[in-house]
């Protein structure tokens, strides 16, 4: 290694300086905490954000309606999106150019649009364009479709990468056993690819879980409200922010463990001997 070109400061001076900087950093934290503690109106904070009377009134509906619907919207969107994403990934890798073009176009369009716009489109545009018809499942179908349209684009790219990560020899071995290309895809390649994309798909599930809150733009009945809408309605009703905070905690109760699970799966995958 080359010697430090700048004239070296003596070791003692450098240590002193480092201690000073570190002390300043902690000092700032303490100063902020003291200021917040002294200036904040704790009573007002508690009554507005953690109001125990309001919290009592939220249960059990915030779970049986809000969280339940959030889970249902997410599940429908995830299953539809995963199916469509797999089909798009296979189209993207097809040797038939129009299939490839469609898949590329779809991914570019739906990754480039805000999810909110898709929800408004499905919620408002589709009923206007096809009056008298309705999607199976009503609002559940609409929210699920909107979520699926968005997530299919992301999942298609993830699955495509997973398929391409399967070593070439796997396809060759399958073909040498007399499997057709599509048979080898179904039996050998895709099952391996799906295993490698479980962690990124789990992350996608977390994103979907949060995006399901956009269902409130579709116009839902009281029983169809998911967490965000439920929190918003009750916050207005009670003129208090506590329902929003509780709804947020409900989201975190699901998203943090799921994110942790995704990282665990990823770490295990990486540690696997190949």
């Amino acid at each position, binding site marked *: 290694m080359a010697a430090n070109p700048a004239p070296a400061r003596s070791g003692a001076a450098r240590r002193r300086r480092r201690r000073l900087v570190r002390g300043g950093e902690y000092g700032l934290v303490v100063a902020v905490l003291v200021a917040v503690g002294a200036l904040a109106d704790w009573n007002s904070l508690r009554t507005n954000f953690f109001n125990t009377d309001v919290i009592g009134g939220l249960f059990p509906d915030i779970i049986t309606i809000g969280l339940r619907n959030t889970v249902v919207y997410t599940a429908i969107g995830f299953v539809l999106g995963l199916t469509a994403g797999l089909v798009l990934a296979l189209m993207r890798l097809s040797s038939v150019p129009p299939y490839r073009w469609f898949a590329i176009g779809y991914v570019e369009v739906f990754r480039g649009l805000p999810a909110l716009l898709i929800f408004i489109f499905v919620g408002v545009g589709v009923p206007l364009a096809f009056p008298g018809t309705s999607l199976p499942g009503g609002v559940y179908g609409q929210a699920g479709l909107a979520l699926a349209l968005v997530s299919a684009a992301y999942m298609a790219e993830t699955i495509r990468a997973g398929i391409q990560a399967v*070593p070439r*020899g*796997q396809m060759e*071995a399958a073909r*040498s*056993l*007399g*499997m057709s290309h599509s048979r080898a895809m179904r039996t050998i390649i895709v099952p391996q690819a799906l295993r490698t994309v479980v962690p990124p798909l789990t992350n996608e599930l977390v994103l979907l879980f949060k995006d399901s809150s956009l269902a409130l733009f579709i116009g839902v009945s009281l029983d169809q409200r998911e967490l965000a809408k439920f929190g918003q309605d009750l916050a207005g009703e009670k003129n208090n922010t506590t329902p929003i905070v509780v709804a947020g905690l409900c989201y975190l109760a699901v998203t943090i463990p799921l994110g942790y699970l995704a990282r665990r799966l990823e770490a295990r995958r990486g540690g696997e001997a190949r």
Partner: protein
Amino acid sequence: MRAIEIEGLRKAFGDDEVLRGIDLAVEAGEVVCVIGPSGSGKSTLLRCVNLLEVPTGGTIRVDGDEITDPDADLDALRRRIGMVFQQFNLFPHLTALENVMVAQVKVLRRPRAEAERIARENLDRVGLADRADAFPTRLSGGQQQRVAIARALAMGPSVMLFDEPTSALDPELVGDVLGVMRGLAEDGMTMLVVTHEMSFAREVADRVVFLDGGVVVEDGPAARVIAEPEKPRTREFLARVLDPAAAAPPKRGKE
């Protein structure tokens, strides 16, 4: 009838012509070893025989059926040609038993019970009956390669192709795989083997083909080609392979 008949086989990757007119025939029940320096086209030749590489020219017949015919039912033809790869290529998401069963069930449409019976027979044949439920990552390289051989055998092929089957193995595991291949040869299997194992070629093969620069340089009885090669190029290659330590030290020049 000849098991494999190759005439005027050519294969080019872009401008790089790897095979330049190969003629080679393998009789039913014969064991032929293909040897030659790396880059001589040995593996490409083998991969052309089941059309993992599509030849640029020439014809290949397996059991009299021309596989290079554009109308040939490739999937049906490939079922009769077993292939063993240098890197084993076992399916990592399936157990050893399932690896040997999957193509029987999905391709030959055998009932599961029959497929399992045949799979266990073949695992037993390669000495791995007790590892049937192990996943590939739990098997040594030699064991993986033997499962791969059982997988190919379970399809009932009339010809077996081996593409450097022991090159990726630790030296102490090579013997088990060669032992299985020797057993196959004794049972009368038609085998085309690309290999660097000269002792195997000498003792098991009926014929040895020396390939260099994309052409067959020498083709004859195994013992004769290895012990008394006619062509200088074959002699030079064999001298290097049989006694690598005898190579002259590199000439040291000025820095």
